[in-house]
């Protein structure tokens, strides 16, 4: 090794030396390095596997949750969420503004579905009796894309364009009113003139979700019919949008709030994201994430111990070598740096391998989703959302970055103590003995 001069070049050549020494040592203790690496590889693999499935599961929860309620982002009259009265509806004007805003080139690429709905609380009656009902007037095509109720049909069919007196009714309500496909029934509610108005409907399809609050009270009817019934014309009670990914939500919310600025200030509209309109779901996801972080925090602590063990051992065996290096001019800091680089590169390489393996295998084997239905009970429900037992992995850039940063952090932390030990070697003492 050439003696370094006090020149600007010296530090860069030292860096080269440091790195080369670090790598050479890793190679020299191959078996040990590999074993340690294995732990990190498995850890990285597990981390990616678990988080991609976890993120995918959360996204499914969110998707299910928002499709049965107002969407990722929903616009309503501010009073409506609590009052549920027809007076608290969005005027046709505001409705059109929102629909237009969602067509804008900034937002449109992220939009999966938009549905404008008129929700009315009323009474459903048949010749056999009557029950309170929640009647939701929708556009059949929009709603079929937006929501999942159309897929839960057990008899008949969902609403279609051109339907007028059609009602899509839940199984619980069907049984209570003794109806079947084709039966006539009547819905009544207070219209915009404060009078009770009735509307004839015929059952065109029957659904079953498994959630009794929905099966026993929800009825879908065509939007036009609803508007004619309560006299609200083209007004609606909410406009909801389903986006491609829940990460876009803040962007869309901000855009809509800017666009509807005037309406918001006059109290005619309010833009809400799904966390606001569905707090229990948001909480459920937070808990699940927390559990995951806890598990992985612990796992990586264990892995970190393994790393510390390995790196420390190799330091303690190389007293002589470090002694010689320092005698030849390497500063204690640089000696420590060697160890740090060793630990970090071991971690980084094995981490990359693990993550890469994780990505590959998860995508390859589970890209089509894991079917957990054999494990889960039939009607699993979490915060009002029926759990779909199919889990699809979701790979997010931010998550990957998080994982890498975490792995490197662990590697760095695990290498600190050994690096410090290496840096504080007493050169003279070190070279005295054989080992």
């Amino acid at each position: 090794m050439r003696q370094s001069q006090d020149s600007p070049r010296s530090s860069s050549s030292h860096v080269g030396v440091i790195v080369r020494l670090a790598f050479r040592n890793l190679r020299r203790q191959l078996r040990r390095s590999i074993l340690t690496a294995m732990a990190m590889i498995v850890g990285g693999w597990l981390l990616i596997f678990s988080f991609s499935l976890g993120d995918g599961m959360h996204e499914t929860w969110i998707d299910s949750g928002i499709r049965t309620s107002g969407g990722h982002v929903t616009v309503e009259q501010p009073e409506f969420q609590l009052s549920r009265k027809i007076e608290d509806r969005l005027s046709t004007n505001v409705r059109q503004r929102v629909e237009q805003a969602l067509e804008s080139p900034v937002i449109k690429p992220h939009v999966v579905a938009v549905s404008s709905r008129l929700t009315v609380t009323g009474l459903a009656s048949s010749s056999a009796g009557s029950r309170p009902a929640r009647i939701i007037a929708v556009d059949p095509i929009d709603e079929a894309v937006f929501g999942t109720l159309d897929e839960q049909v057990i008899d008949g069919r969902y609403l279609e364009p051109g339907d007028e007196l059609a009602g899509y009714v839940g199984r619980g309500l069907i049984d209570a009113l003794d109806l079947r496909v084709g039966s006539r029934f009547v819905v009544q509610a207070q219209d915009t003139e404060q009078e009770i108005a009735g509307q004839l409907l015929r059952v065109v399809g029957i659904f079953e979700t498994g959630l009794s609050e929905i099966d026993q009270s929800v009825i879908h009817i065509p939007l036009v019919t609803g508007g004619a019934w309560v006299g609200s014309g083209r007004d609606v009670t909410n406009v909801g949008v389903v986006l491609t990914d829940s990460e876009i939500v803040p962007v869309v919310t901000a855009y809509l709030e800017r666009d509807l600025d005037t309406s918001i200030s006059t109290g005619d509209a309010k833009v809400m994201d799904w966390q606001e309109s569905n707090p229990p779901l948001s909480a459920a996801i937070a808990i699940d994430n927390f559990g995951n972080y806890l598990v992985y925090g612990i796992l990586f602590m264990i892995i970190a111990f393994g790393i510390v063990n390995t790196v420390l051992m190799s330091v303690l065996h190389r007293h002589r070598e470090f002694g010689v290096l320092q005698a030849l001019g390497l500063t204690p800091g640089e000696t420590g740096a060697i160890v740090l680089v060793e630990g970090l590169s071991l971690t980084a390489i094995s981490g990359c391998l693990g993550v890469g393996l994780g990505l590959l295998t998860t995508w390859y084997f589970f890209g089509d989703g894991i079917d957990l239905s054999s494990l889960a009970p039939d009607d699993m429900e979490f915060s009002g959302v029926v759990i779909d037992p199919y889990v699809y992995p979701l790979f997010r850039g931010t998550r990957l970055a998080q994982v890498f940063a975490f792995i490197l952090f662990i590697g760095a932390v695990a290498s600190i103590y050994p690096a410090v030990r290496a840096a504080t070697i007493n050169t003279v003492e070190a070279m005295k003995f054989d080992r």
Partner: protein
Amino acid sequence: MLESPWLRIGWRNLGRNRKRTTLTALGLAIGFAANVLLVGWVEGLQAEMVESATSLVNGQIEIHDAEFRPDRSMFDTIGGRAGVDVDALLRAVDADTAVVAAAPRVYAGGLVSSGEATSAGMFMGIDPARELVLTRFLDQLVEGRLPVSGQNELVVGEEMARQLSAAVDDELVVVASGADGSMANDLYRLVGIFRSGLTELDATFAVMPIGDLQALMVLPPSRIHEIAVATTDPWIAETTALRLRDTLPGVEPAIEVVSWDVLNPAMVDYVALADSMHFIIIFIVFGIALFGVANATLMATYERRREFAVMLALGATPRSIWSTVLSEALAVALVSLVIGAGLIFPVMVWFHNAPPDMSWLLDSDVTLMGALLSPSLRVEYNPSFWLTCAVALIVTAVIAALYPAFRAGRTPPADTLSGL
């Protein structure tokens, strides 16, 4: 085995390289601690869920007239039209050792009206003293106090109070169908507001003393709809229900005694599902720890190859080398167990008795399978699982040491001693 030199050598070797031993032991100890904590937390959540489902409002066992479910007609009282000796029945239920509390209930549907709005409501007549022991939803009223019998007082849920724009001390009109067909009505004073956390409850229930509701509905005191029962442990409810069915005095027409797992089978399935996950966690955690221990043991045996060479040269068999290495691993395992247990059991006791509140993490209550979960790091004890973990820890350590032990036994004595 304790007399065998190999175990002694094993123990002694632990002290040889304290740092390494400590680190390895720590890794295993953390694995153990993690398993215990995680499973404790998951079981805490489950227990919370089951308790919430059964002790918030419902009780672990319900006794009704056999016809009462599912229609819940007000006329299907226990003992039919003649009713029962309620006190005697309650005493008989209380007498069972597994029963913590039993309370009578009467239900009715009707209307509640404040000056400003009218809401459809479900009325529940309770015995306040017994109810407080049985359920939790009235323990902490948002406002006010529990109703006193004979004073026309009632409490409603928070959501109903909001819908009626009613506050404590307001006057409410109650209208219900009487058992004689009359339109029963009376004025009541709102003396308290409760929040159970379950919106259906908070929006539809109005609670008053059982005698008052019976009087309103023109039902004699002997006619009640339900006796709700709490048992010492939700999981013995089923057997307790069976026992009660046999020991309770005969009632005509027939009564049913049904436990919560019959009323809520989905929740039972969910708990079984969560239980099956325990083994996955053990597997993952100790799987990872395996590498660390294998590594450490390998390093250790490599370092001591001269020692092994000497032993072999002096006539020890490879088997005895294995014994040494394995007993060292066993020793590390035991030390880890002690460390791990020492680390985690105080935490478990702490979290079990005073679980830290997690509500900073969430902004609302979560429901799971229809039951309310309060956000806290509550843990449950599971000694059999702990034993499994301990065994897993020891097994991990031993398995990790197998290959190094084997390799150590094959140390070539001559080559090693000559310096290769």
